[in-house]
């Protein structure tokens, strides 16, 4: 072997430390995408080809808009880091499967260009971009955003409403009847063969994805557990026919709570830094979700509760600073 000449190439000189972990932003983002994939694919299978194309439209347009913004702003192109892909995926997982394609693209535009890049790009956005995109679609096309698939929920019932819609408008008993019994309803909510947004229906697949992220240490278990737990306890206590008459199991699995608690309320950019702060954040999300579901005009409140808690994240961060070493003796 040839002699190595130390003077041939300049040595790199930089501040310590000189070794780093294998962790990277793109590794985190792609792992989250993988964790979401089973629930998204189930949604495409369950709702059909339109839903699949809708998912692809959201993802491709989100990536494309990120590319264009960075090109125009003459910034490094970071579309391969998986974060725009994730935003597009999350957004379309949270819209009705019948939404026109162009609306998904508009949602991606708002999420990527307005909510993410006008704030400075990845890391600087205050609000969860996918949820901003969804909220914008909600106020722009309220009808399209609340028109659901027609589907057979039990032998003799065809419904084009989500379970939460039925609960809000027709009450709990009708809800159970549309599924042909409580056991059938829980099973439908668990597996995901029920009406709702494309990617929010399969509780079991979303929980598995979430557990994978907890195992990979990309999210803290406290956030989903506390957010879902708060909703469960409050909906049980403040039930339709007096205290302690609610159905917590239904509420925890219905709507977008599972996807929200595992994948949106854990979005590291927009939630508090410390574990203590994240617990307060999750508690607030659970409270607001319940408030909107039980008292608000909308049947579902996950999206807005998370956005509202995003807004107070800087305050929570200020309150929940780590305890420095040497402060207690």
């Amino acid at each position, binding site marked *: 072997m040839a002699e*190595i000449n130390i003077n041939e190439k300049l040595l790199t000189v930089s501040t310590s430390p000189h070794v*780093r972990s294998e962790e990277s932003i793109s590794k985190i983002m792609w792992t989250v995408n993988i964790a979401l994939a089973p629930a998204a694919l189930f949604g495409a299978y369950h709702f059909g080809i339109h839903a699949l194309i809708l998912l692809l439209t959201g993802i491709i347009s989100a990536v494309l808009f990120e590319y264009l913004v960075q090109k125009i702003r003459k910034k490094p192109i970071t579309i391969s880091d998986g974060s725009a892909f994730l935003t597009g995926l999350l957004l379309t997982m949270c819209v009705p499967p019948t939404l026109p394609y162009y609306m998904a693209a508009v949602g991606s535009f708002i999420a990527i260009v307005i909510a993410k890049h006008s704030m400075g790009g990845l890391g600087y956005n205050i609000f969860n971009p996918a949820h901003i995109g969804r909220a914008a679609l909600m106020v722009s096309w309220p009808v399209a955003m609340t028109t659901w698939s027609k589907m057979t929920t039990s032998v003799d019932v065809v419904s084009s409403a989500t379970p939460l819609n039925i609960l809000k408008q027709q009450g709990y008993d009708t809800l159970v009847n549309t599924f042909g019994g409580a056991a059938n309803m829980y099973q439908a909510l668990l597996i995901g063969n029920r009406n709702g947004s494309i990617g929010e229906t399969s509780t079991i697949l979303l929980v598995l994805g979430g557990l994978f992220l907890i195992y990979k240490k990309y999210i803290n278990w406290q956030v989903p557990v506390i957010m879902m737990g708060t909703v469960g306890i409050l909906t049980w206590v403040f039930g339709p026919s007096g205290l302690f008459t609610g159905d917590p199991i239904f509420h925890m699995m219905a709507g977008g709570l599972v996807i929200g608690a595992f994948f949106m309320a854990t979005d590291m950019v927009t939630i508090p830094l410390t574990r203590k702060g994240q617990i307060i954040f999750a508690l607030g999300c659970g409270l607001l979700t319940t408030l909107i579901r039980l008292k608000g005009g909308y049947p579902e409140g996950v999206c807005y509760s998370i956005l509202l808690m995003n807004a107070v994240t800087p305050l929570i961060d200020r309150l929940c600073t780590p305890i420095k070493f040497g402060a207690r003796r």
Partner: protein
Amino acid sequence: MANSFRGGVHPNDRKSYTANKPIEIAPLPSKVIIPVRQHIGAPCSPVVNKGDEVKKGQVIAKIDAFVSSNVHASISGKVIDIADYPHPTFGKCLSVVIENDGQDQWIEGIPVERDWQNLDSNSLKSIIREAGIVGMGGATFPTHVKLAPPPEKKIDTFILNAAECEPYLTADHRMMLEESERIATGVKIVMKALGVTKGYVGIENNKMDAVEVMKKVFAGSDVEVVAVPTKYPQGAEKMLIKMMVNREVPSGGLPMDVGVVVQNVGTVAAICDAVTQGIPLIQRVTTVSGKAIKEPKNLLLRIGSTYEDAIAVCGGFSSQPEKIISGGPMMGFAVSSIDLPIMKGTSGILALAEGEANTGTESPCIRCGRCVDACPMGLNPSMLSILAQKDLYEEAKEDFNLLDCVECGSCVYACPAKRNIVQYIKYSKAQNAAKAAAAKAAKK
């Protein structure tokens, strides 16, 4: 264990390169470059002239402040130059260059036989001071200063820091296996000098063989050998004290504020030599490792040998090094050349091959909180780095405990955005210091 500090990281320790390699005595170099400043504190002034013949162990630069340390000739020979030479941390430093005469002759009076049991605390401290002993773990704080705390600080515990938590480094590990008697004597001497009866040895549990050896050598004494969890920075003084005696050194304080003195393995071995044989600090064990080193080794090197000498003993480079590091990879210094001298605090010389350092391009913080979880000092490194970028270093100091940072690098290790947080923190500290200095100057 219940007392473990919060935070910390688990880097790949890469100790297997050298953990099983016995300490090898390096051949004497043809010349040594000995800087007059190898310690924290005031530089000392040379007491030899160009052209002088010097003997091994002779004082060549003398202490003239309390926080300082003597420097001795590490070989016998002729002083061929006294001038500024490259220095790993200060850029340049006044150094005494000695050409080897091949005799390796001690100065008269060394070595001596001394029974340390008959010496009192003050004579022990003065021997340690004269022998030029400093903290050999890398911090290089003069040992005699550490052993002489102000009277109001009551010291009741001594801790031997044998954690060696830096990846790659195995010098302390090997010394414990091969030189346990010297270490034990050194510990007893330090405890006598401090007047303490309770001692601990903290060793990370990735070195159980060393734990066994040390347990044997300290059997029946008041020194307890404890295997501590392997978690970086376990060997940081404050973390180790928390681990061993569950006391938290207060913010801005020193170990002596909680009644503890901590010394490193190499340091107590050097203390043993100085007290029992009169031998000053002229050599040390250094780990030479990294993927770009052909044959990684633990070497016993004379102070003032160059990195080049040490690397040559290890067969040279096996591939083009990307980084050369003085010390460990977490807190060591990257250097720009290999014609630098081994000093009292050079615990390791690492040549990292391309990719070994896993650098990568820095991107904005994504607020994942990994740095907050990793910080053993309970700080918010993310915020400190952002404040530094905006030049808000005063806010960093006032509101975010900037000065509590020990620069252990755990945050940078953990950061997926590859942010150079320690660099930002060093910058903010320097800006604050410069501002304070300017304010002081304006007052005069």
